[in-house]
């Protein structure tokens, strides 16, 4: 058979000598590599205690943003749902009633907003599409869970804490974005 490359090597099938059969040299060679790694720098970290810094372009769990006065920015324009290649986002809009001006920034808002995290592929198109700076992908992972039902994220899970009543949690959720 003609070989595809000229790098093929014929395997030697000589019987081993007594010295080779004792494997002493091979064991020493192997162990030296093993013990050598003890003195090298560890590439792993102890995850829950220590955390790696995220890349600034990391795309994690979605956050629905509020403005400085704590009003929801989302106006349920549907552009995130339109841009979503996985069709993970759904919403229902409602009109702001008089007296709700401190809750919602615009006259229309998302009464229901849901992201199906089982469908989401974390591409970040929703963040690109949003004209109101209302949704962005934060530097956190979507936590694991035992049931599928827990992966339907509603406004309770997505909305950022109010910067007026809870500025610490707001800053933490906002991260570096």
């Amino acid at each position, binding site marked *: 058979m003609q070989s595809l490359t000229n790098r093929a090597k014929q395997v030697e099938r000589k019987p081993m000598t007594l010295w080779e059969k004792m494997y002493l040299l091979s064991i020493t060679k192997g162990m030296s590599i093993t013990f050598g790694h003890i003195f090298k720098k560890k590439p792993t970290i102890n995850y829950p205690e220590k955390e790696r810094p995220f890349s600034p372009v990391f795309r994690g769990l979605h956050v629905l943003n509020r403005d400085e006065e704590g009003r929801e920015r989302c106006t349920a*324009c*549907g552009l995130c749902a339109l841009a979503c290649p996985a069709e993970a986002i759904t919403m*229902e*809009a*409602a009109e702001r*009633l008089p007296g709700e001006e401190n809750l919602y920034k615009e006259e*229309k808002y998302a*009464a229901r907003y849901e992201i199906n995290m089982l469908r989401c592929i974390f591409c970040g198109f929703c963040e690109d599409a949003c004209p*109101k700076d209302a949704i962005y992908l934060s530097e956190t992972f979507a936590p694991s869970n035992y049931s599928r039902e827990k992966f339907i994220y509603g406004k309770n899970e997505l909305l950022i804490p109010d910067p007026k009543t809870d500025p610490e949690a707001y800053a933490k959720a906002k991260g570096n974005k």
Partner: protein
Amino acid sequence: MAEEQKKLFKVTIDNITIEVEPGTSILNAARKIGGDIVPPAMCYYTRLKGSGGKCRTCLVEVAAGSTADPRPMPKLVASCRTNVMDGMVVKNITSDKVIDARNGIVEFLLINHPLDCPICDQAGECHLQDLSYEHGLEGTRYEFPRRIFEKHDLGPYIQLHMTRCILCFRCVYVADQLTEKREHGILDRGDHSEIATYIKKSLDHDFIGNVIDVCPVGALTDRTFRFKNRVWFTKPVDAHRECNNPKCCGKVTLWYRGEEVFRVTARKDQWGEVDDWICNECRFEKKLTSDWVIEGPTMVNRHSVIAQGHYVGVEKPQEVLYDVLDGRKPRLFMDIHKISEVNEPGRDLSKIEGPAHSTDFVEHKNK
């Protein structure tokens, strides 16, 4: 004499020659050719007598007036109000002057326009949106506070956002020509001018709903559809019914979302103009599939955002699970309606009169 009447005028628009009847406007001659060379029109409406000549977006350059007098017209002319002459040479997109002027017009139209497209129900089928997408600047050079009006409810069905209005007068012509007595018109002058009913009077005429269809922007919108859904998530379907109103044609487009009819509009042609007027009963009160005879899906231009998610000629793969499982149904791991709060089976947004409010959304039982 009779032979002279039959004589067609030869007109050249952007190097394309067409023969049209005398008395045709340049805009309509261009529409006969079709394609990119048709000037945009925000105020002209074929079915409304006297409309046109107000928005100036359809300006074209006339390079040669006619065979008899081939001098060019000194200024750009409004193509919707200028009739063709024999041997006329018109430049639309081939003229830098026209493009420049149109960019300027769009900038003027957008001076006071709030550009609240994310909120506006017209977004996706708005002519001003298309126009500014094509001709608009990225930013604005206007430094002064924009003209802002209070929201009016024109009756229970029509919402007026005067801030978005570009004063095209189409709705005034509809009120004038379709209803016996006009109750709304334009008040004040210049920057203050606004569409209004006297003392916010309710308009109750059978055909007043048509102002929603003719409005090129989101100034007049359907209150029964207000904020219910985005047009590009709804599916347009042609339908008709026997309407008792003799003047109503009963031919409409139904805008479906799932099984619900969210909106009823008149059928529109490729220029965004209605084929025929429909009455208020058809438009606002018949929102059940059983009220209508469905004809089939509406043809939507595939470049329109409304065409998103409408797949034509799709062949679904054959479902093999039933055969493999000996007719048993595959186990459903999650019923989305059990957990999802959106599109709950018990709550029909289309049946709420006017826009939904926080009171229409009760807290979910499972959460």
